[in-house]
């Protein structure tokens, strides 16, 4: 038989003014299992809490019901008090006599009657409470950062600078990401490389950062604090330790005519190459598809001429498994393939290009050394038309959302063009100009007012060629939707920002959810923007939604702090309000039948399969098991389970049934 104590709080007049607390205490004393019931002015006060502690000792209470304010207010307080009193904190329940009773009802017998019922519910519940202990999960204090763009770089540096080892994995041969391709950055027009490369170098020589470029995540197992990451290190076909990055191989490579991805195909590169001069690491990769040796078995020019003998044609991919405690997703974005714009004649007309190409044209380190020369004939275009929202906010193109950065970089492009081509004309077709951000609108105004960029509000219907010249056909909605046709030498499309092609696949590897556009989903749109709903996996940058550099860096630092916060604890402590699958002695082992219909009900992929084996090690039955590291305690699995084999600690079937039996 239980020994429950009931403690009724007056909360000054807040409760006592409406509810007859004495009557409630008297009624409580009559409830089976209740051995002690008192009322007091302020239970949460020191004397109040002392009263509770003493009663637990003197009356040998094994359960406590505090009838006071909302448990959302003081449950932690009184659970701590109960613990100090010498019982398990989870043997304490609260009846909400204030928010749910005295504050919302008139002073009346019915209100006191309700108060009594609310107490009875909790008394019946607490009689079925089991002592619960906080769950402690060990933490591997090493972070995995996926993606070596500015987001990944920032996150890696912040985590590493806090003294934690970081494994930074980048799929391409160099870190730097899109930002390394940019010429200048808005709204300050400082050169992208100048601000980025120091960070890249810092990553390379940081004692806490292990950098794996040209590598990919194959598999992620485990849970928060205890992940196992399987990483494929693709064969560069050179020995990175020996190579000193002298570059001879690149000069001597007989293959020369391979479109250079870094320059968006505006220039060529050899078959063995370093993506760009400032690449980190500054070590080449052999492009096996195009290497003469790999195609014909002959050549080996690089091998012959390499001063350090670093070439390894027989090098294979390597698989490594790393224990990590947290993961930061910083895999970035792609821009909409321009092949999506037949109406703008992309592919047909050489001089219709996308924003990235323009960045390379405008970049001092680019193929033209920063001179604006159009791809078709290398002439300097006298009139350039920029088309904003190319794909964005366009349901027909499957991108109803705003890509956020285009307004700003289009203004930047137009501005750069005006700076480089004096007397040239830049026209921008736009839907709206969205320049919310520090110094952003000022920046756009500058483009218009100081650099004389022409802004035409309207959509472009098509781009066609008229004896060798591009004609941009659109409307000017500000001139009452009148048709405008502009003859241009070059057209630049501000193509939409989209999730990476492998985003969905990656999300499934990591068990994180994603939105309809394959951007990774945050755990809560407002309050948990850098967390995923898989504990221990965090988000940084444009893999979550279109972002510009400042936002990306801010979010990356945010994610880094979350990781550091996690790593700052000796072990991970979690509330024991989690689901558990029943286990019993043989021959039953568990009431679970192993149908695993609960698996798809769990929002956290916390349900695993456990094979129960006999002494000879053969499997008797396979049943569900809840991973305490992942379970958040929602209980959705519990109500899915037909055999009632799963139960939720703290809200168990017995507890809730008991409450129902006392209504």
């Amino acid at each position, binding site marked *: 038989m239980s020994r429950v104590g009931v403690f009724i709080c007056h909360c000054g007049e807040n409760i006592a003014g409406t509810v007859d607390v004495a009557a409630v205490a008297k009624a409580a004393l*009559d*409830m*089976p299992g209740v051995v002690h019931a008192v009322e007091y002015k302020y239970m949460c006060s020191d004397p109040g809490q002392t009263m509770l502690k003493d009663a637990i000792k003197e009356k040998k209470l094994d359960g406590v019901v505090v009838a006071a304010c909302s448990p959302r207010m003081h449950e932690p307080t009184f659970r701590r008090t109960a613990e100090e009193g010498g019982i398990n904190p989870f043997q304490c329940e609260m009846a909400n006599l204030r928010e749910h009773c005295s504050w919302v009802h008139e002073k009346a017998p019915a209100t006191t009657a309700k108060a009594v019922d609310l107490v*009875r519910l909790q008394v*019946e519940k607490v009689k079925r409470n089991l002592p619960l202990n906080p769950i402690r999960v060990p933490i591997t204090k090493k972070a995995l950062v996926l993606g070596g763009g500015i987001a990944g770089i920032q996150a890696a540096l912040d985590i590493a600078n806090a003294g934690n080892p970081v494994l930074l994995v980048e799929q391409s041969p160099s870190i730097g990401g899109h930002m390394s391709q940019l010429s200048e950055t808005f709204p300050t027009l400082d050169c992208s490389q100048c601000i980025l490369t120091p960070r890249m170098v810092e990553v390379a020589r940081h004692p806490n950062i292990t950098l794996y470029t040209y590598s990919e995540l194959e598999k992620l197992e485990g849970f928060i604090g205890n992940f196992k990451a399987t990483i494929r290190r693709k064969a560069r076909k050179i020995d990175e330790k020996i190579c000193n990055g002298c570059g001879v191989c690149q000069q001597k490579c007989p293959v020369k005519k391979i479109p250079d991805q870094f320059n968006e195909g505006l220039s060529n590169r050899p078959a063995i190459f370093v993506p760009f001069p400032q690449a980190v690491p500054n070590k080449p990769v052999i492009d096996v598809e195009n290497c003469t040796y790999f195609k014909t078995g002959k050549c080996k020019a690089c091998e012959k001429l390499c001063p350090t003998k670093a070439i390894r044609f027989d090098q294979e991919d390597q698989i490594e498994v790393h224990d990590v405690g947290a993961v930061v997703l910083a895999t970035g974005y792609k821009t909409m393939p321009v092949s999506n714009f037949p109406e703008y004649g992309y592919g047909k007309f050489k001089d219709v290009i996308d924003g990235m190409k323009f960045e390379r044209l405008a970049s001092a380190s680019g193929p033209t050394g920063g001179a604006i020369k159009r791809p078709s004939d290398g002439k300097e275009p006298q009139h350039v038309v920029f088309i904003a929202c190319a794909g964005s906010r366009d349901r027909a193109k499957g991108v109803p959302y705003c890509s956020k950065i285009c307004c700003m970089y289009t203004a930047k492009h137009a501005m750069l063009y005006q700076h480089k081509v004096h007397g040239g004309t830049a026209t921008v077709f736009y839907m709206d100009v969205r320049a919310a951000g520090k110094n952003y609108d000022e920046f756009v105004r500058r483009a218009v007012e100081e650099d004389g960029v022409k802004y035409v509000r309207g959509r472009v219907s098509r781009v066609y060629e008229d004896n060798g010249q591009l004609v941009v056909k659109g409307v000017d909605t500000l001139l009452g939707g009148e048709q405008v046709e502009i003859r241009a030498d070059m057209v630049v499309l501000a193509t939409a920002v989209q999730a990476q092609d492998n985003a969905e696949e990656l999300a499934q590897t990591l068990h994180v959810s994603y939105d309809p556009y394959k951007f990774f989903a945050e755990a809560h749109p407002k309050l948990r923007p850098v967390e995923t709903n898989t504990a221990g996996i965090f988000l940084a940058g444009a893999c979550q939604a279109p972002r510009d550099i400042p936002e990306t860096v801010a979010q990356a630092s945010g994610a880094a702090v979350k990781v550091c916060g996690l790593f700052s604890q000796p072990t991970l402590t979690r509330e024991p309000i989690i689901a558990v699958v029943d286990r*019993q*002695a*043989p*021959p*039953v082992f568990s009431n679970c039948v192993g149908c695993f219909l609960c698996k798809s009900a769990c929002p956290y992929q916390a349900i695993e399969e456990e094979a129960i084996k006999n002494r000879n090690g053969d499997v008797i039955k396979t049943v569900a098991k809840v991973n305490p590291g992942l379970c958040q305690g929602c209980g959705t699995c519990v109500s899915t389970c037909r055999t009632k084999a799963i139960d939720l600690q703290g809200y168990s079937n017995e507890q809730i049934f*008991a409450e129902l*039996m*006392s209504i």
Partner: protein
Amino acid sequence: MSDKYIISESGVGSLIDAIGKSGRRVLGPKEVAERIEIAEIKNAAQLATKGQSIVSAKGTVFPKVERLMKYKYEGKNIVLDDVDPNAAPTVLFGVRPCEARAFHALDVVFNWDYKDKFFNARLANTTVVAIGCTEADASCFCTSVGSRPDDPQGSDILLSRLKSGGYLAEVNTDKGKALVALAKDVFQPLPGVADLVPAATVAPAFDAKVLEQKLAGKFDNPVWLEQSLRCLGCGACAFVCPTCVCFSIEDEADARRGERLRTWDSCGLRLFTLHASGHNPRDKQSQRWRQRVYHKFAYYPDRFKTLGCVGCGKCSRACPVDMNLKQHLAQAAEG
């Protein structure tokens, strides 16, 4: 020695009315939507004089759910309320002789050591008027278990159909006489020998004595697994059976009050023997099927000197997978 009377077709009706007027309720086989149920009979027309009810009449003395006691909390004190068996005076009218006979098999258990007051109160207030069978089906096997379609055992009054219409009434007990007293004019003296419609022919399928002997050596025989392979392990057979006595005690309670109920249970159900430890001495369906057979045809004779079966065949008719008891017993009695 029983007194014999004649009752005309219309006499049956008058008798039922008379019984009703006497304050007794009349239950009997009644056709409801192609099913025969044991239900309240208001007049002779409602009586199903052919065929068998699906569920037996045992509910009159051993209901599927009955309350044994109630309690409620008054403050901290528990107030007990000993409920009385509401044993309404009842006449079970027009059931088959096999059903009538079944009450003995229940009686021996409910009065074995502890005398069950609920059962006894109901039995004492129940009078059985059976009608002899002139038809039988492929599930019937009363003749194999020491009975016959016109067996008077267990009937306070046995009615047998006359060729000329009406019935021969054999009044076997004082309960029976009490009914006669209710409607003297209905019971006409018997003119010489009664010309009865011949009783149904039920060919004996096995000899219960032989079966009992065979069972002694058959406990580990594969026949039980073979027979029970298709058995689903439901309780249909037990719950329609007129002699099955297994019950479960269930407490149903909330924070303020509670009651203790006795409900039908079945040894065919897996949970019947499941221990709290998780161990189940009769874990396999074959073991449970064997138990059913042995209980009725070995343990009963041994313990009560009577069979736990009256050969009514209700179980076979009710079975979703056609476990035909007669067949299976015949097989067990062989070899």
